């Protein structure tokens, strides 16, 4: 909403500088986003009157224009097509700053010789003054413009660009802002006095109005003016409309817009000649009914939309836009002026469904007061009579099925203290609320009955009044205090604890954390498996962000891909995020998962030499350590998945439950995702399952006072025997405290189909120093058990 200060002054005295005014409004809830000073740069520009026009002796398309500037005259060369003797124009003297019509740059005007004639100054277009983009001809000023007066004095203004919050439709009007200013600056707001003569026949003889669907129309008022002469509206109206960002059309339409901006009540003028049967019916549209709106678009209506119809067809989409057939145009003589109040939700739905949002619908959907209709109608009728002539019919139509009593609120003053923490006295409360138009009737010493003015549709209970008090005294007035009440009990969420431990663990392992979009494309989604569990967004912004991901893999592989080209060393990424899994008609399961991906050289290029390429065992090492950190014993089961290398993929299993998946990405997928042709290893673990098994409070084991002994042991087994099986058997023996696999060998010295596994086994007792004999005995038992359970043969010592 743009508010011209020149206009605002009609209703309230402005005593403070613009910046201060803007600041007060902003602080009190009506944000001023910017202030445009019209005429700030108009030094050396005055109102001139064209006194003579002669042809330029050396150029066909130029003229010599003599301009009367009051105390002097100036003759300048002019290229504009619309120079006419007697017109008043803005005239820039040498030294003025103007916007170059072609380059858009601000330049200082100098004397110039144009085709042999010296020109000192120029008559200006709107564009050159920075008023609009119009550069087709000179700006023609109103005839009453005083010749010789600085243009800034005559046309200068300050326009506030305001952001009005949805709860304050009353502030979508100049009067509404004037009321705010009045309350903030302790002045009176003045509302225009409306009076006009009704010299025509009684309106009921000409017009009838029927509200069929009263649930969608709380009030309908109309007046009739016959014999109107349509023409341009006077400059002061045009200027104000332009300042507020509206385009002047003709006097009647301009007046409806002017009064809408003034009062906040949308109005519509019908060409009464086009209203069939002189009858207005406010009803729901029939399904499929059509209308061509004022913007020339043919629209199909649905049965939940409200229309204004004549006896036959719709003539307007109620509260949204008028119909083209009954538009007020040059030949219109009789005006039926509508000022009505429609159901906000209905207007909002209709304008959204038609994708047609207008200044009118904007106001109606926010729920303006039905008390406005008659006031605005009479004001507009008066202006039409004044500026367009004609005769008003006697009386107005006023159908008001939705009348309600003014709202009254019982307001105990302790509510102020309760919400703001400060006391306010009855006098202060009454004064502030009174300045905003609320009527206050004290009910004893500490309670007041407040009657809400009709325009304040947003105020309905004590808390609302408290806000009014706070914003007028200023939020700065409220003290800063510290809460001292009891605290809620402690909360402990093991899943969050584990998750944050994991986050720190991954960073500690040298992985970069990423956070990626939860929404992915269908193609990306398929990377992680079946699509049917995924939820789709009904109104996606793009195909790239259409489905809620069911795994982090699509995102991680995308992030890997987008970084591969510019990262020199290997890439190690992890994300802790949610997988969204359909759960019938209920909200989906939002499962937190940890995902990680590695690819590229294990270390960056270094003079210390290459360290090989990241692969399955890099993530395996991380997953092993992570599980160990959480005190979880897991198995790794080979698995075949379409997306993973068939021989390099594993499920992470605890007990009977799969808690994660890891492996090298299938080379086919690497290629189709357009990743660099190198190994990509990836994993994902379900955090809730980790959390439920994590032994976070793992017990403390005393350190043994007796020495450790370590022995190496190498066995030969079939290649199919998992190393972990062998290792677990060894670990199961008492006195064995650690087992490390340090060599895996297949080759010449081993029979085909076999592999050699070499372990370092650490023995230790908590009660005594182990003897060689004891250890040798243990080793024999280990080998015997291995042989029995895995067919292992001792290789060497």
């Amino acid at each position, binding site marked *: 909403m743009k508010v011209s200060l020149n206009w605002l002054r009609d209703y309230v005295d402005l005593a403070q500088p613009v910046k201060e005014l803007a600041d007060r409004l902003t602080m009190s809830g009506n944000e001023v986003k910017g202030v445009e000073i019209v005429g700030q740069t108009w030094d050396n520009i005055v109102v001139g009157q064209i006194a003579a026009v002669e042809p330029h002796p050396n150029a066909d398309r130029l003229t010599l224009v003599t301009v009367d500037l009051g105390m002097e005259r100036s003759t300048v060369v002019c290229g504009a097509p619309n120079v006419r003797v007697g017109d008043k124009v803005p005239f820039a003297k040498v030294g003025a700053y103007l916007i170059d019509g072609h380059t858009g740059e601000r330049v200082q005007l100098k004397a110039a010789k144009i085709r042999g004639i010296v020109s000192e100054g120029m008559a200006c277009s709107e564009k050159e003054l920075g008023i609009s983009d119009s550069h087709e001809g000179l700006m023609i000023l109103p005839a009453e413009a005083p010749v010789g007066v600085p243009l800034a004095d005559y046309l200068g203004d300050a326009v506030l660009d305001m952001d009005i*919050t949805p709860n304050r439709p009353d502030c979508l009007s100049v009067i509404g802002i004037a009321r705010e200013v009045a309350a903030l600056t302790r002045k009176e707001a003045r509302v225009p006095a409306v009076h006009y003569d009704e010299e025509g026949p009684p309106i009921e003889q000409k017009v009838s109005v029927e509200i069929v669907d009263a649930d969608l129309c709380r009030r309908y008022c109309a007046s009739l003016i016959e014999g109107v002469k349509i023409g341009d509206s006077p400059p002061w109206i045009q200027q104000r409309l332009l300042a507020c960002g509206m385009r002047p059309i003709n006097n009647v339409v301009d007046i409806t817009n002017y009064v809408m901006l003034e009062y906040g009540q949308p109005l519509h003028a019908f060409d009464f000649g086009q209203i069939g049967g002189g009858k207005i019916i406010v009803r729901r549209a029939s399904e499929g009914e059509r209308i061509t709106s004022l913007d020339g678009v043919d629209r199909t209506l649905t049965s939940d939309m409200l229309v204004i119809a004549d006896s036959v067809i719709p003539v307007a989409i109620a509260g949204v836009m008028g119909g083209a057939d009954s538009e007020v145009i040059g030949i219109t003589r009789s005006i039926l002026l509508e000022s009505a109040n429609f159901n906000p939700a209905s207007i909002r739905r209709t304008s959204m469904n038609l994708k047609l949002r207008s200044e009118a619908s904007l106001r109606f959907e926010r729920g303006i007061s039905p008390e406005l209709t008659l006031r605005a109608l009479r004001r507009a009728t008066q202006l039409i009579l004044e500026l367009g002539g004609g005769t008003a019919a006697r009386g107005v139509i006023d159908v008001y099925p939705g009348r309600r009593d003014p709202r009254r609120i019982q307001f105990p003053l302790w509510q102020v203290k309760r919400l703001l923490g400060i006391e306010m006295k009855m006098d202060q409360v009454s004064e502030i609320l009174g300045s905003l138009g609320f009527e206050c009737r004290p009910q004893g010493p500490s309670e007041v009955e407040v009657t809400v003015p009709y325009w304040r549709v947003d105020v309905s209970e004590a808390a609302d009044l408290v806000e009014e008090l*706070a914003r007028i005294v200023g939020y700065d007035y409220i003290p800063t205090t510290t809460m001292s009440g009891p605290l*809620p009990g402690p909360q402990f969420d093991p899943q969050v604890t584990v998750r944050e431990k994991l986050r720190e663990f991954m960073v500690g392992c040298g992985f*970069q954390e*990423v*956070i990626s979009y939860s929404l992915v494309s269908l193609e990306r989604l398929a990377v992680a498996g079946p699509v049917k569990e995924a939820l789709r967004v009904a109104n996606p912004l793009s195909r790239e962000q259409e489905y809620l991901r069911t795994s982090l893999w699509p995102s991680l592989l995308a992030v890997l891909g987008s*970084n591969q080209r510019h990262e020199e060393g290997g890439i*190690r990424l*992890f994300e802790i995020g949610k997988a*969204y899994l359909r759960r019938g008609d209920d909200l989906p399961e939002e499962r937190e998962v940890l995902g990680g991906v590695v690819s590229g050289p294990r270390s960056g290029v270094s003079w210390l030499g290459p360290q090989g390429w990241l692969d399955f065992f890099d993530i395996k090492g991380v997953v092993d350590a992570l599980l160990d950190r959480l005190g979880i014993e897991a198995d790794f089961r080979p698995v075949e998945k379409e997306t993973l290398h068939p021989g390099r993929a594993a499920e992470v299993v605890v007990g009977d439950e799969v808690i994660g998946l890891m492996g090298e990405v299938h080379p086919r997928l690497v290629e189709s995702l357009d990743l660099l042709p190198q190994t990509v290893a990836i994993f994902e673990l379900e955090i809730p399952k980790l959390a439920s098994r994590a032994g976070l409070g793992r017990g403390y084991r005393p350190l043994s006072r007796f020495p450790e002994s370590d022995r190496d042991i190498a066995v030969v087994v079939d290649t199919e025997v998992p190393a972990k099986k062998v290792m677990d058997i060894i670990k199961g023996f008492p006195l064995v405290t650690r087992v490390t696999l340090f060599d895996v060998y297949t080759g010449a010295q081993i029979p085909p189909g076999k592999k050699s596994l070499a372990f370092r086994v650490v023995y230790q007792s908590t009660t005594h120093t182990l003897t060689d004999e004891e250890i040798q005995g243990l080793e024999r038992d280990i080998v015997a058990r291995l042989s029995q359970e895995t067919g292992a043969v001792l290789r060497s010592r």
Partner: protein
Amino acid sequence: MLAELEQLKARAFSELDVIDNLKHLEEWRLRYLGRKGSLTLVLRGLSGLPLEERRVVGAAANEIKAALEAGLKQKQDSLKEQSLAVALQKSRIDVTLPGYPVNVGRFHPTTQTIREVCAVFASMGFQVIEGPEVEWDYYNFEALNIPRDHPARDMWATLWVEAPEGENPMLLRTHTSPMQIRLMEKTRPPVRAVIPGKTYRYEATDATHESMFYQIEGLAVDRGITMGDLKGTLFEFARRVFGEERRARFRCDYFPFVEPGVEMAIDCWVCRGKGCRLCGNTGWIEILGAGMVHPQVLRRVDYDPDVYSGFAFGVGVERIPMLRYGIEDIRLFYGNDLRFLKQF
């Protein structure tokens, strides 16, 4: 005899002087002090001397032995020192050479910010809790005083989730505020919590708009909580996160689920209030929306608004590092370019 000893001593020391390695030093030791060394022989020959002379010569010989041994020790030390110096000299390196590459992991800047902000509120007694991102219309809007067809819905352009048609549509939460309702539904006052999480908007993206971003919601409800407490809490937050010297300002603003409503700004640290590009020439930088919990919202969760009052606020997470580091494009956060992420 004594003269011989003196000569021996003089010879031994003159030889010792020129020795420059451990091998020669050992030969020298054997020559004089070894089992068959000259001095040893002298001492061994003492027994043949008359008692009086033996005592004199013996004393002199022992004195010389001690002197030679001391000379030996000194020589040994100095030769070791020399050879160490040589070894050290040989193993000198170019200390400017890079070390073994270390993989450094980092938290995403959003994680860092959430951790920092939550820690600030935790120190003020706030719990940290979380909630669902896929929400019912009821929690995201209805229960927050934003019924269907309410014009304020324009403030939250919504991504809707395909679900069976029903009274209660499913959506991606547009703010973390639904957690106000969920939290109050399952607990009774005192309530004091912050809720960080992802939020979504149906919004064309540009440098200042993202379709996904993080918020931190705050909620405190109990008997006697006032707007003064809201001020105290948020001003403290602003000082701890943006610097001790920051000034904060409350102004009236509108959110349907609070009354009175607040927008908080802090003074611009670039221009110190004079007006610059960062603050859009206002001298103030808006950082969050807040207010006193609307009585309708309290009634909705069966809290009596005449007994309980409270405040709520919502902070955009990315905005904090954006302001702090001068990051001009919010899309960098979830674009995950490592060249960006590695700077934090």
